[in-house]
């Protein structure tokens, strides 16, 4: 069968079954304290067909999550559906009561929430939380009952159901099943080498609590065992599993290795990716027809994101589950979904087949999204402003600099890192953990060096050592040819003036008690630059520089969005005219459009002022837009160091290729009109 006829057959079936979810002219309002209605979603329509992936794309506040939550009947606080219709399998559900929704959730609709950290209860074992999902839908009782029935029937010749996909393999029967299978293969006359291959395959595929009777029979038949024998083995050995087997089976379906052990662990023993997998297994535990995934991987590294989404795709395909996928990344949406719905300011602005939307965006907002998506851009941002255009402006900024500063030897490399190693003591362990292991690189003046790696690769530790917020165990960091470990007093303050950080978390890096003015003024105050008047002038200049209105001076960080706070953080870092800015995941927490804006700002500043950036990120797509050189780190070690083009065109290491592979939508071509 070719792909196109496959798709046609699929479409014919979907057409016949009709949409599983049909949302028409949906309107959602939130009531504020002062009884004002805020229209979060206006006249939005979209539909999802069985087995389909549909993506809702939009920036934060576009109403994409609100639409999904309205479908699930889980609108937060004062939100309520005020108009339109939501039909699940043809049945109008928007007017349902809480009780009625409880019947739907889990069995008909499942949810994979956004933040894995806050959506699992830290005091309960993972397995218990999966069990809870099963219990809520009485799947645990029926599961045990069915298992008992299947066990009772196994002795006799009665067929339970021809296509019973509810009879799972139990861990107690696994060994017996494998023995029987080996024997059957021998009887069937399968050659020894092929037999071993098949047995290895069976050992991997037959997961207790997940593998069903008919799939075991099917596997055996495909391996060459005759039908009757295969079914006889399947019936006698696959006789239902315990609930614990089922829980482990569900977790292992979601891609957790050693699921039985993992099920007994607590959330804090899991990494972010593993938590997300646990949430996926909870969302799919009761085999819903529709899974709503609300930015399921936004908090994760791109490589983990790719692995999890790949796995989720295979899993939902094999279960025939439709997925409503919510994301802010158009590239990711286009790669994963067949149909895209673009939302902006609470309205659907464009929708259609994903590739068509991507390649021929019509609405200006969609065009903007396509232009900003880092995954799709394949060029370094070229700043519109060239070097040296800003003589006059620059001079006015320079007058704030403290006079009499010692003239430094201006070498080509502004920061050089040599054999940097940092060890940490782990709790309850004797041996030290090497977070950074013999890393050397140097940052050329006026260029951007990106350090790329997954979380735990030690890249942020390197950044902190370059900033001298951490002392290296061994190795040196030199700034302008001098070892920074030797700095103290005035020289240290001077170093602080010239090397500035911008941190990842835009909500944490500004003091919530400080006005924007005080935050930006702080470095000037610490370094006793100018008097109150000139400082105020300088803050105004800095705000202009990051393209923020001067009126935000008297505001507090909680009134600004993540991207705006990040721009304030950049303004603060720029206050003392630094030479080097260390950006530690500075754009990772931002929506694509805002991310693009901040990257362009950083780039303009570099072009204007000849800044050097040390840019820490997990996202290679961003690297391509901003970096000249790339250092790839894995497990604390430097695995590859080359120019950006070199890394993208001829990656040398397997790991770098994995990272490149993981860029969402990286291989999709676009046609920007």
């Amino acid at each position: 069968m070719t792909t196109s006829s496959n798709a046609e057959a699929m479409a014919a079936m979907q057409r016949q079954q009709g949409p599983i979810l049909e949302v028409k002219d949906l309107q959602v309002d939130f009531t504020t304290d002062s009884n004002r209605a805020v229209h979060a979603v206006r006249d939005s329509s979209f539909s999802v067909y069985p087995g389909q992936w549909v993506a809702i794309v939009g920036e934060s506040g576009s109403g994409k999550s609100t639409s999904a939550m309205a479908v699930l009947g889980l609108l937060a606080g004062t939100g309520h559906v005020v108009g339109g219709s939501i039909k699940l399998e043809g049945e109008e559900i928007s007017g349902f009561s809480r009780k009625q929704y409880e019947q739907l959730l889990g069995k008909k609709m499942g949810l994979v929430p956004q933040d894995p950290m806050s959506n699992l209860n830290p005091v309960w074992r993972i397995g218990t939380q999966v069990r809870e999902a099963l219990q809520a839908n009485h799947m645990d009782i029926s599961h045990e009952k069915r298992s008992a029935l299947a066990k009772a029937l196994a002795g006799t010749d009665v067929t339970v159901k021809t296509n019973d996909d509810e009879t799972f393999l139990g861990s107690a029967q696994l060994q017996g099943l494998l023995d029987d299978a080996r024997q059957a293969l021998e009887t069937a006359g399968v050659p020894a080498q092929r037999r071993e291959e098949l047995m290895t395959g069976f050992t991997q595929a037959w997961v207790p609590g997940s593998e069903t009777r008919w799939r075991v029979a099917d596997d055996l038949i495909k391996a060459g065992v005759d039908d009757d024998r295969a079914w006889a083995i399947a019936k006698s050995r696959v006789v239902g599993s315990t609930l614990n087997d089922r829980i482990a089976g569900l977790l292992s379906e979601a891609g957790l290795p050693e699921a039985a052990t993992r099920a007994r662990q607590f959330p804090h023993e899991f990494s972010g990716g593993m938590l997300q997998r646990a949430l996926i297994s909870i969302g799919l535990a009761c085999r819903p027809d529709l899974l709503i995934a609300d930015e399921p991987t936004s908090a994760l590294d791109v490589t983990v994101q790719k692995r999890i989404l790949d796995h989720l795709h295979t899993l939902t395909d094999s279960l025939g589950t439709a997925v409503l996928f919510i994301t802010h990344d158009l590239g990711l949406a286009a790669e994963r979904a067949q149909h895209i719905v673009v939302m902006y300011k609470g309205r659907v602005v464009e929708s259609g087949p994903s590739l068509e939307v991507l390649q021929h965006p019509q609405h200006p907002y969609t065009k903007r999204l396509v232009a900003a998506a880092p995954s799709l851009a394949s060029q370094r941002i070229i700043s519109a402003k060239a070097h040296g255009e800003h003589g006059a402006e620059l001079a006015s900024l320079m007058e704030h600099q403290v006079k009499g500063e010692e003239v430094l030897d201006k070498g080509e490399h502004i920061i050089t890192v040599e054999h940097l190693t940092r060890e940490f003591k782990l709790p309850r362990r004797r041996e030290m953990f090497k977070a950074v292991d013999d890393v050397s690189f140097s940052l050329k003046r006026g260029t951007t060096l990106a350090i790329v790696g997954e979380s735990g690769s030690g890249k942020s530790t390197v950044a902190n050592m370059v900033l001298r917020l951490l002392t290296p165990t061994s190795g040196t960091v030199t700034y302008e040819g001098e070892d920074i470990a030797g700095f103290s007093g005035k020289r240290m303050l001077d170093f602080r003036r010239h090397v500035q950080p911008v941190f990842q978390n835009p909500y944490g890096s500004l003091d919530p008690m400080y006005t924007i003015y005080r935050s930006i003024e702080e470095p000037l105050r610490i370094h006793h630059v100018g008097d109150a008047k000139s400082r105020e002038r300088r803050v105004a200049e800095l705000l202009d520089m990051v393209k923020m209105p001067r009126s935000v001076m008297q505001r507090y960080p909680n009134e600004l969005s993540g991207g705006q706070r990040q721009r304030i953080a950049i303004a603060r870092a720029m206050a003392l005219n630094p030479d080097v800015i260390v950006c530690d995941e500075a754009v990772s927490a931002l929506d694509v459009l805002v991310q693009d804006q901040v990257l362009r700002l950083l780039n303009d500043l570099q072009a204007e002022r000849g800044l050097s950036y040390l840019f820490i990120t997990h996202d290679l797509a961003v690297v391509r837009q901003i970096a000249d050189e790339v250092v790839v780190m894995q497990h604390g070690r430097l695995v590859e160091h080359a120019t950006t083009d070199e890394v993208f065109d001829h990656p040398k290491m397997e790991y770098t290729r994995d990272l490149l592979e993981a860029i969402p939508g990286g291989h999709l071509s676009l046609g920007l009109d």
Partner: protein
Amino acid sequence: MTDETIITNSQAAEPANPVAAPVVLKGQERFVAPLDETPLQDVDSVDEAAPATSMWADAWRTLRRNPLFIVSAVLIVLIVFVALFPKVFTRQDPNFCDLNKSLSDAASGHPFGYDLQGCDVFARTVYGTRTSVSVGILTTLLVLVVGTLIGAFAGFFAGWIDAVLSRVTDIFMAIPLLLGAIVVLQMFRTSSSIWKIVLVLTLFGWTSTERIARGSVMESKNLEFNTASTALGSTPLRNLFRHIMPNSMASIIVVSTTSLGTYIVSEATLSFLGIGLPSTTVSWGGDIANAQTILRTNPMVLFYPSVALAITVLAFIMLGDAVKDALNPKSRTA
């Protein structure tokens, strides 16, 4: 037949040709909204029209709408006014007692009648306000300073400094307030100053504030803006006073306002027991103690200072609750 298959295969083998007319299902046709429906705005623009807010401004807005706050604030303003200007309410000297009038009923200008000693109950109740309110407010302020400083140092420096300071706190926490106060106050029986009460209450009351301060300093010292400040060249101590402590103040203030009422009660209790202020200082606790002997025959003499005490304590506790609601970080929008 075979030829056709080959052609299809070769087509499929070609590098992805994504525009191969996708199958479109009903309800999923291409849709583009008219532009005027959602005019495009600048990326991430600042809403300059939005009213400016800060934590304190937000808290004030929440407070203003809270009936609990309005009632308690009105009461407290009244109580403080009475404490500051008792002469406005009565011209009678509270220490002028005429035994002839012992236990006389209310008369014009003496609405609450006279006590056993023949003193004006109204005047004594009015003048007693000053003692109670000053003890409450002074103790609260002193506890705030002592507890916050010790707690902040313990939380900020951690390590052995924290270990020492925390054990000292534990020791003081283990001593019951009244027991400790009785022992210490025995030594200063002769002094009539309210400061001795304030100091004793502070000595045994700072521990809860220390705990809270230590906890919230530990919490806020790990926030990123401190690292950012350090990288700007700020010293650790500057961070502590400029960033960490202001961010810890909310929870400390909540504890302080709520405990203000209990200090007033403690003062009354100590005076009632006769180890607090001497009888020459007018205080509700002392008056309640004096009135208890005649409770059966003249309950009203005990009633007035008790009610005054109850209302004052209630007002401060209600204020504490309202402040707690307003400053509760969970009820605030990020």
